[in-house]
């Protein structure tokens, strides 16, 4: 373990999926800038994430995004004391763009450099949002690519309690929205439509809800919704999309809330956090808040901008890695299926 560093000014880069993002942080938790080159307009055209397009866009966007982050934070290259970058999991071509930029900066400026796990980054969005929050916490990270329930005992000490065995929660939202003709991104579309629907209108399965494990499964729910739509069409019935949206959303939310509370009970933790794009879902926030109040738990979640993929959260996680003396060499690789590991 090398010497511990507390970088006052840190730059971070995230390019694991569709967003190119760079951020400048002061003392790990204060965001001086957080530039996200959102590609949502490109994706809307195709009804989903387009990783190849994203990969090329990363190359085009990375330097302007880094420049933009420094400009907005009013810092120059000479002010930067450390670099953090996402090195997995994700699409290798996309990850490499951010990683190469970070390495080039680290080499040219001779600065300490650290790789961060993408889901770990999501958890740290909560530490940016809530300046006084300290571990231990239980964090539910729900996004298009991930559904992970993690017990964070301390900075760098994690235990993955549960994860999805098939589709991620956000992916289920996107796919159901697609077959319902609601467009992309599916999460906000279903969230909005569900407000006008009855969550109890259609009886849909809650995947693995009685299973003793804290794992998730959303594939069966997806199939059930598709089968329901087909069978209604065959009967010549018009679909009630608000009811279907609300019922589908409720099935996802039920499982997420119940398993998270179950995890907190098992570990004996009173602080629950949420992260990732789906954590911005209004029904999930409402139901999780309700469940936490009942159990006397504290609930934390980041503001919407920190729920999406962004570099600030990666910077915060990287800061704490550096604080404990953890550092990576310039030989660090992009790992598409990077496992979630402790670094202390």
């Amino acid at each position, binding site marked *: 373990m090398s010497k511990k560093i507390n970088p006052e000014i840190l730059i971070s880069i995230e390019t694991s*999926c569709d967003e190119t993002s760079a951020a400048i942080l002061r003392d790990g938790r204060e965001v001086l800038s957080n530039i996200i080159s959102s590609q949502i307009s490109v994706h809307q055209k*195709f009804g*989903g*994430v*387009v*990783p*190849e*397009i994203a*990969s*090329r866009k990363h190359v085009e966007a990375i330097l302007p995004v880094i420049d933009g982050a420094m400009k907005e934070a009013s810092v120059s290259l000479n002010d930067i004391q450390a670099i953090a970058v996402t090195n997995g*999991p*994700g*699409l*290798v*071509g996309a990850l490499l763009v951010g990683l190469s930029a970070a390495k080039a900066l680290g080499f040219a400026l001779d600065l300490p450099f650290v790789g961060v796990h993408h889901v770990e980054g999501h958890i740290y969005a909560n530490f940016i949002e809530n300046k006084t929050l300290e571990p231990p916490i239980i964090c539910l990270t729900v996004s*298009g*690519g991930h559904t992970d329930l993690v017990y964070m005992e301390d900075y760098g000490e994690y235990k993955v309690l549960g*994860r*999805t*065995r*098939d*589709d*991620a929660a*956000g*992916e289920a939202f*996107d*796919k159901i929205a*697609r*077959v319902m003709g609601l467009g992309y991104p599916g999460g906000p579309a279903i969230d909005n439509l569900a407000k006008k629907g009855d969550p109890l209108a259609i*009886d849909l*399965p809650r995947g693995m809800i009685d299973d003793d494990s804290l794992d998730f499964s959303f*594939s*069966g729910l*997806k*199939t*059930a*919704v*598709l*089968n*329901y739509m*087909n*069978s209604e069409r065959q009967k010549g019935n018009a679909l009630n999309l608000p009811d279907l949206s609300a019922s589908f959303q409720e099935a996802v939310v039920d499982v997420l809330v119940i398993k998270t509370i179950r995890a907190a009970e098992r570990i004996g933790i009173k602080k629950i956090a949420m992260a990732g794009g789906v954590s911005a879902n209004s029904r999930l926030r409402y139901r999780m808040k309700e469940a936490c109040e009942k159990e006397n738990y504290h609930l934390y979640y980041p503001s919407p901008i920190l729920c999406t993929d962004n570099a600030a959260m990666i910077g915060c996680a990287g800061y704490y890695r550096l604080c404990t003396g953890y550092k990576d060499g310039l030989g660090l690789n992009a790992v*598409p*299926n990077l496992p979630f590991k402790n670094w202390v």
Partner: protein
Amino acid sequence: MLTFITRSAKETEALGESVGYLLKAGDFILLSGQLGAGKTVFTRGIAQGLGVKDYVKSPSYTLVNEYEGRLLVYHMDLYRLESHEELEDLGYEEYFYGKGVTIVEWGERAGSLLPDDSLKVCIEVSADLSTYRTDEGVRLIYIEAEGERFRGLLEELSKDVRFRS
């Protein structure tokens, strides 16, 4: 072409596992079927047959998922591909002509870039679904071979009498 009928996700997975046992380095599988047909379930079976211990998750969001069993396994979903150029950007040769086993969903998006030889698996949702409550629906699974290597594989697979229609 062989036709199979499976009556549950478990059976679809078991059929995939039988295919997985027969696979060799460099094999290429094209998987088609509508959303929710069971493409990921079938792939999970293949991965089990190849000794993969990890959960096989949907690659729709990540585009490519990699697993390690007795061979490297690449599970791809090309649904979002718009042009061949994008596939070239991705370095598709490493997946299509590499040393692992590659399983591709929505492979038609790759058009002429697809290898000539492949095992084609088509999963069809049976029309007489009486209930939407379970995923125990009936599936018709057609497996077809393109090229010498896969015709041999299909011959081997034909000895497996389970789920044959």
